[in-house]
């Protein structure tokens, strides 16, 4: 099991609310990623970071934002949630050295926006 944690695991929230999805890893990995996955569909990269104070948008356009102030922490924020944001959000990390290509995933946050 990878040491990467996501909270909450499930979230039901009303339209217009601000939400933050937490992701933390204790492996000292410098690279971290956020993916969005709908049932039966592929994972889409929405944000990634190669280290502290580094953040980039992924291949899928997203209204969410991320920050990377500490190596171990990579939270994702939605300023105003909408039903179209309903999805599963997966956080992952990979190391600086060694098996850099391997990504370790958290358990995911399943978000439902009413």
């Amino acid at each position, binding site marked *: 099991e*990878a040491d990467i944690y996501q909270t909450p695991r499930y979230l039901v929230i009303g339209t217009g609310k601000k939400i933050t999805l937490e992701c933390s890893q204790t492996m000292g990995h410098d*690279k971290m*990623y956020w*993916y969005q996955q709908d049932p*039966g*569909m*592929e*994972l*889409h*990269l929405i944000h*990634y970071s*190669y280290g502290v104070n580094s953040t980039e948008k*992924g*291949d899928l356009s997203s209204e969410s934002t991320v920050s990377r102030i500490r190596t171990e922490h990579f939270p994702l924020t939605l300023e105003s949630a909408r039903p179209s944001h309903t999805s599963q959000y*997966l*956080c*992952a990390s*990979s190391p600086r050295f060694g*098996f*850099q*290509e*391997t*990504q*370790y*995933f*958290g*358990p*995911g946050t*399943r978000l439902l926006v009413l």
Partner: protein
Amino acid sequence: SQKIEQNSEALNIQEGKTATLTCNYTNYSPAYLQWYRQDPGRGPVFLLLIRENEKEKRKERLKVTFDTTLKQSLFHITASQPADSATYLCALGTYGYKLSFGAGTTVTVRA
């Protein structure tokens, strides 16, 4: 446009048989290809990586082949067990350690 296609239908096999999954891609030049396992409600778990200059990789009952001419990878689970039931994802690695994923193939192994 870039596309990654995995077996569109779920795979249902008898325990002890070999499951073979396909991953085809277009308009990619991957440096490496990975296979992940995903159980319901969980994040993917890394299984195997194969690089563009490698033809085959094995790990216990798992075998992966990679044909960059055909733009195809095959993933084999030999002597399958009910515990192998899961969704298997193919992922192509490109510049900057980013991965592009297929939609996955769901495998069910009957006892």
